[in-house]
């Protein structure tokens, strides 16, 4: 099951050229661009690991694309996303976030039903991938 999180996730995966254009857009808006990765695809997993530091004060996307390719080299079997953080007053939050790398196989989620008092049921989702320990979830 294809994970859809953040911008563009219902489109086909972005090509490097398209990613460059998006990153350049962020830089021109003055946002700091971050690279984050994880192997826990649960939608409530908000805070992913950061690759290096947030990249402030850059002018051109080439440097970030270089970092991305470094990150892919190490964590190519995980989800990698980019986010643009707007530090200007009043925003001070992430303005854009999109997935730039995903595992080859995405096993998807299991729906668990828990029967509780009476005939009530609690639902929860659990990614099949997290049954395995961190770092080994996608054949890495």
């Amino acid at each position, binding site marked *: 099951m294809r994970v859809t999180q953040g911008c563009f996730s219902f489109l086909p995966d972005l090509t490097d050229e398209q990613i460059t*254009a998006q990153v350049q857009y962020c830089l021109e808006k003055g946002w700091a661009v971050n690279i984050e990765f994880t192997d826990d695809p649960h939608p409530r997993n908000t805070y992913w690991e950061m690759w290096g530091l947030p990249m402030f004060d*850059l002018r*051109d996307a080439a440097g970030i694309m*270089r970092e991305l390719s470094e990150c892919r080299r190490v964590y190519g079997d995980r989800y990698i996303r980019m986010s643009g953080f707007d530090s200007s007053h009043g925003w001070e939050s992430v303005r854009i976030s999109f997935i730039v790398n995903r595992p080859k196989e995405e096993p998807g989620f299991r729906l668990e039903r828990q029967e509780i008092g009476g005939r009530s049921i609690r639902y929860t989702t659990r990614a099949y991938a997290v049954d395995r320990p961190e770092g080994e979830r996608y054949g890495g």
Partner: protein
Amino acid sequence: MTKPATESAPGDAVDTIDLRKEFEAVDIASVLTELDRELIGLVPVKTRIREIASLLLVERIRQKMALATTFPTLHMSFTGNPGTGKTTVALRMAGILHKLGFVRRGHVINVTRDDLVGQYIGHTAPKTKEILKKAMGGVLFIDEAYYLYRPENERDYGQESIEILLQVMESQREDLVVILAGYGDRMEKFFQSNPGFRSRIGHHIDFPDYSDAELLAIAELMLNEQNYRFSEEAREAFIRYIAVRKTQPLFSNARSIRNALDRIRLRQANRLVSRLDRMLTSEDVMGIEAGDVLASRVFSGGTDAPGGRPST
């Protein structure tokens, strides 16, 4: 956004190009005339820049005709004494490269050893990479580049920085242009011990010292920009000032001139304020008198060298 190399696919290559139109389209002529007007002297440097600009223009046309196969090496080394205009030219160079489309943004990141080399193990690589990332799409100007390499200390981290630089200079030639600057003899030694640098640099440009007449022209240009002017006697005095100052230690060409002018303006202001009861005309506030120049310590056998001002 697009690199010149990707502007046209081989399929839509053109056969003929109007050279004049191309020349006017990129508007380097205005940059070159500006260079001529605002930079006094430096004839060999200007000739070289003109040559590089022409080469790049032709290269651009070749790319449009799908004849260019490789991206030209644009890394440069500027050698010359302090105050000969290396940084100023680097800024202009970025403008020229940007107009011709060989760098995408045209900004200049000005760094020295401190910005590239770390203080402990593992500090250097992130620091250098950080700077390189900032310089992407523009020009990285490394002032006094020879300090990167300290042969007397074999555990110096400069070498690590040099290796990263060399790697990026080679692999990301389309993304950034590196300009190294420094004194001639020390740069020569630096290149001897780091042959990798020399071979990756396409253009070595030597900045000559200014002659007395050129220094005077620079002084007058600076004064003009600030709406001051020399009186006839003050100009004579300043010519003598240049001659004396040149023989003193720590003379750094145009920078010394700028500092001297700053002090002269100080003395002029003091002279005007010392006589309060009168009406001033604009002539008075613009005019610099011989006395303002002659009060300099240079004429009384002292030195006008600023204490500990970093020289480039």
